[in-house]
Structure formats: C-alpha cells, structure tokens
C-alpha cells in the first residue's frame, strides 16, 4: 500500500486549495492509498534562520511543527502539495515550509526516505502556466531535492477568481483526482 502525504498551504478554509486537495485525496484513498493530510494553516512553522545548525545531523534547531511534517515526508511514497500563487510566486506559507528543507542541502548525507512521486497543485488568477511550472521545476531539480524524487507533476489552475472556482469546475476537480490516482499508483 502506498503512503501519500497531502499538504494544504492555502489559508482559506473551504477555498480552492481545499477543494482540490479533497478531490485528490478521496481519489487516492479510492485507489488504495493510505493518506496523510497536513494543513499548514494549523501548524506553527518558523522561518529558516540560515544558521546551518542542521549541517551535521539534519536536525533543525527550531523546535516547532516542521519536525513532525518532516517525519511524515520521510515515510511516504508520494507527496501532493497545494499552494496559492500570490504575485506570481507561491504563498509565504508554502515558501516557509520549503525553506525549512534547508537540511537536505546543508547536511550532505541527508536522505528524505524512499524516492517519491511529487505533485504541485497551484491555484492562481492570471499567472502564466509555464512560468509557474518553471518556479516549481527550480525547486524539484535542485540536486538535494531531486535525489528524493522519482517523478513529478505540476498542475496550474488559472482564473481562480472566486473562492469556489475549483469546487464548481468539473474539469479542475477531475485534474485533481487524476493527480490523486497517480500518486496512489
């Protein structure tokens, strides 16, 4: 059985990110995956201080909720991440979590568990799809991150002008379901 972690970074309860993650997560479960769900809005995660305290063992000096997320990240076979795009760049909540993966490059021997499938679901209003994919690719192709990735996909959901845009779009929900099924394979 595959373990799949879903990470929601939208601050909006019942918004577009929640609709996409619910759809993807239900589909992954239907396909036999054991699902885990972390909502960043319920967590306390500090900014990376670039102190490189993690260089030796990979453990961060900050004792906050990121440690538990990292523990699940190690365990899972796939990760599906949702992030809203604000001003052409992922929201600070997601960036904060990504920055805390500092241990993966500061600590040269660091391994994020088994190689994973990774998917990004990005919601935006008018951002360029290719530019947003490049933004993700920049992260996933970093040597310290890419060595933990088996395959990756990015879906960009444009024109999310209302909180309910995704919930009301069968096309968007079905794209999210396809990601859920892929993650569970």
């Amino acid at each position: 059985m595959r373990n799949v972690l879903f990470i929601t970074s939208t601050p909006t309860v019942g918004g577009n990110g929640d609709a996409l993650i619910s759809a993807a997560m239900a589909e992954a479960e239907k396909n036999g995956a054991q699902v885990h769900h972390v909502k960043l809005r319920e967590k306390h995660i500090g900014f990376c201080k670039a102190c490189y305290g993690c260089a030796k063992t990979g453990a961060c000096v900050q004792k906050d909720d990121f440690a538990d997320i990292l523990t699940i990240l190690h365990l899972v076979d796939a990760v599906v991440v949702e992030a809203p795009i604000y001003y052409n760049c992922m929201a600070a909540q997601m960036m904060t979590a990504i920055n805390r993966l500092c241990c993966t490059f500061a600590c040269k021997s660091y391994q994020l568990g088994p190689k994973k499938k990774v998917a990004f679901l990005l919601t935006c209003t008018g951002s360029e799809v290719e530019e947003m994919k490049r933004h993700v690719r920049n992260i996933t192709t970093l040597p310290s991150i890419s060595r933990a990735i088996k395959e990756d996909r990015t879906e960009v959901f444009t024109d999310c002008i209302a909180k309910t845009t995704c919930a009301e779009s069968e096309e968007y929900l079905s794209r999210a379901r396809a990601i859920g099924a892929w993650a569970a394979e």
Partner: protein
Amino acid sequence: MSKKVLILSGSPRKGGNSDLLCDEFLRGAQESGNQVEKIFLRSKKVAPCSACYYCKKSGGQCAIKDDMGEILDKMQAADVIVMASPVYFYSIDAQMKAVIDRAVARWTNIPDKEFYYIMTAAEDSEDVMDCTLECFRGFAKCLDGSREMGVIYGKGVYEAGTIQGKPAMKEAYEMGKRV
C-alpha cells in the same frame, strides 16, 4: 533632489551577504543626500497573509496586528523601495514573501515607486536568480506606475560575510549613490 529611500532587508542572518549589500546601497544613497531607512525584517514580526480580506472593508488595515502596518506606512511614504533577499530554492526567502503577500492590504495605494532589487546566491551564475527576480517583479508589476531601476547580483556567496570585497559591494554603493 533628495528622495525617501526605504530598504527592506530580507536576510535571515545578522551580517548576512544581502544585508551587507543593503548597507552599501544605504551608504551610497545617504552620501548623495537622500533620506534613507533600512528595515531588517529579521527584527520585525510579519505573519503570513491569511487571505481573510478584512483589508478590503477596512480601508487597508489588516486584521493581523504585527509590524506589517508600520512597514506598509513606510512603503507608501517612500519614493524608492529597495528589496533584498538571499536566493532560497531559487526564489526569494519566505520572510520577504510574507511582506509581499501582506502588501495586499494596500497594493492599490502604493503608486509610482522606483524599485531596486538585491539578491545573493551561492552559485556563480546569474541564471539561478531568474526566478527570484520574477518574485520581486511579480509584486512590482501589480503596483501602479512602478519602475524597475536596478538589480544587484551578489554571486558565489554562501557563508555570511563572504560578499566583502566582491564587485557587487561596489555596485551596490554606486547604485545607491545614483538614486
């Protein structure tokens, strides 16, 4: 003509490389008679935007009471805004992103600013900063009448302080001087 210059320094490290470049920019801008202030984000508290849109109904006041109100006041009062960040995962750092996201409270009311960007990265090429620059530009593009005036690329720096003696230090000073 003397200008009001606001420098937003996003380095998480005291004496960090992008922060040292900010100091050089500041020195240059002061020497040519401008009114310059640097805000070191590390010493401020700025929570991420909760997308509640309280600010839409409150005339640009945010529901979160932290240091962002003061930062926005100063951004509105400035003629020139300098934004500086190290490159993390090929983007700006989350500290700077939180400030940009929270500017949503008054983004329609920060017109006609001149922008300068300062970035530092461990790698030696400028390509690795493309996406970082896009994060800054993505913000400025949303503001009426914003103009990009200059970019400083602090390349090949990892340990705090290694920017000392690199050409970017002189560039930052001179760019500040020309404000």
